């Protein structure tokens, strides 16, 4: 509680809680360090630190390449994807006024999957370079289609939801048909769905960071106004917001982040739902005001999940979607129970 000069003993508190954001940043840093330190090949921790800061007597040769060209890109990509999915999820939950909304709601996942399948089944040989572009475009086009078929109720949440279901189902149907006609594509598509975190490289990190960080920056900029979207359109309009325009901006940025995340790392579920609730549960603040913290906690969450993915079943890799589901599903139940208990 803040105390003002005039004796009014209450205040709404700071909109941006710097403490929470700072704590999240520290957690992310620690988790990232843990992430680069573990794996089937054990590296000396002191040497890792020295290599990272550029001091002498760090890692050399194959170990150095392992750290710099394999592990660090992988941890960075996990962080980026986690941040993208968590912040998109938080924004979608606000826009759709639904605590169970996730970033794949408007057909982004199905569209990206269709794009990836198209790339694999038509490109013949050189899939590797084209696939991220195809899946990105697929995801974005699917969401655009969702908007346009919601018709005159443009950007109205309920009609968007229904349109999203329609678009998603249609895209999935086409994808299934293509896979039936090209059975050799089954394995590559399956492996794409499982995610590319396992073989991240600096190139992927470069282009995905560009899009994801831009999108998150946009979201954080409008995050304060997003509170208004939690009210009905009449109420938010009277408070000075253009609800439709704000929804479009928010969904566009969130879709950019989601489509990039999916094309870089396949379909990883539950992050977008679990992390916003987790942060809100700990901070007891409105989701939109902790968007920065949510992004960073999402990053940390996925880095830890990725750590589990490569150590739990070593030498095999456990698909990261399995881990996020194992954590996410029980979490879901807890959230649902709590909603029923409270009035």
């Amino acid at each position: 509680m803040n105390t003002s000069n005039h004796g009014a003993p209450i205040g709404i508190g700071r909109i941006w809680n710097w403490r929470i954001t700072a704590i999240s940043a520290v957690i992310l840093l620690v988790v990232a360090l843990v992430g680069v330190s573990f794996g089937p090949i054990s590296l000396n921790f002191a040497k890792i630190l020295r290599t990272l800061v550029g001091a002498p007597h760090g890692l050399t040769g194959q170990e150095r390449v392992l750290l710099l060209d394999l592990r660090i890109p992988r941890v960075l990509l996990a962080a980026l994807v986690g941040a993208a999915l968590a912040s998109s999820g938080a924004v979608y939950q606000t826009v759709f006024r639904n605590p169970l909304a996730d970033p794949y709601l408007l057909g982004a996942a199905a569209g990206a999957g269709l794009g990836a399948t198209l790339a694999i089944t038509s490109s013949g040989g050189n899939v590797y370079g084209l696939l991220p572009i195809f899946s990105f475009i697929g995801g974005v086009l699917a969401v655009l289609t969702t908007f346009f078929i919601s018709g005159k109720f443009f950007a109205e949440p309920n009609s968007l939801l229904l349109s999203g279901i329609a678009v998603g189902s249609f895209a999935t149907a086409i994808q299934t048909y293509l896979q039936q006609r090209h059975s050799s594509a089954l394995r590559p598509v399956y492996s794409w769905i499982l995610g590319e975190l396992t073989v991240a490289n600096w190139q992927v990190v470069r282009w995905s960071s560009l899009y994801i960080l831009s999108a998150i920056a946009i979201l954080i900029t409008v995050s304060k106004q997003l509170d208004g979207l939690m009210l009905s359109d009449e109420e938010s309009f009277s408070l000075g917001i253009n609800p439709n325009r704000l929804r479009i901006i928010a969904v566009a940025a969130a879709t950019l982040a989601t489509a990039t995340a999916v094309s870089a790392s396949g379909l990883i579920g539950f992050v977008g739902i679990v992390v916003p609730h987790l942060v809100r549960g700990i901070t007891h603040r409105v989701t939109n005001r902790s968007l920065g913290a949510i992004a960073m906690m999402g990053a940390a969450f996925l880095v830890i999940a990725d750590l589990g993915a490569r150590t739990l079943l070593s030498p095999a890799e456990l698909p990261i979607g399995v881990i996020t589901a194992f954590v996410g599903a029980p979490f879901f139940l807890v959230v649902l129970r709590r909603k029923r208990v409270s009035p």
Partner: protein
Amino acid sequence: MSRMKYALPVLVSLALITPLSPSTAASKIPTVVVQSGGFPTKIIGVPKRIISLSPTATETLFAIGAGSQVIAVDDLSNYPANAPITKLSAFTPNVEALAAKRPDLIILSVDSTNSMAVRKSLNLLNIPVLMEKAPSQLSDAYSEILAMGLATSHVAKAKALVATMKTSINKIVSASKRKNSLTFFHELDSTLYSATSKTFIGHVYADFNLINIADKAAGADASGYPQLSQEYLITANPQIIFLGDAQYGENAKTLAGRPGWSAIDAVKYGHVVELPSDIPSRWGPRLVQFYQFIADSIAKIN
């Protein structure tokens, strides 16, 4: 650099012996560039710590005398029995786990998850990766054996193995070819997925002059594995049925239990062949055994 499409046959390039730079020692280290699976792989020296992530490659390596150079094979490489089998996965290779074994050559299937990215990452760690692709016909399989011989410095043995295989297979096929060819259905699973003559196994059957009823549905799947309808199957009335899913419990009795199937010639006269689990999916040295098995099955039917 030409980009080889996967569908083209595997080529083997000539061995290149590169001269050493003047600053190093006098003895020449042989370097080869092996073209396999559509990708060139540069191998310096003779690899002594090979990891094979392909059951077929494992069989081939041991057959050409490179067995002592193999330090680990994937969890599905169950032949020969003395191969150093590990928990490494052929389908989902783990880059770090592979690198931890300090190999100097890895044989990786193009069909494994993220194979291109895995290859790139391993190359970054200075580990050469020989790509292996499922062949579409016999000549591809022979090329692969030769490629492996080149890579492991057992060229002569590889050539000899290929020659033996060619002779044996030719003998088996010519002894078995019949004037009036039989129609057959190759069943991949109980939902009636089959393989056309475009596939490797389809070519094997074609070598025996057998007529594949799945060829009529060739347009349904670009890779040659269409799903047939029950009605078509019963109408086509194949004379032989080869069960690729015998390992999952399908046999003549289960087929007879399917509605309408007892009318099919193959089922009526008991011309149902249960294929063994491993051999049909390996295209290494045991191909000869597979051809022999088919020949024996056809002979039994007569």
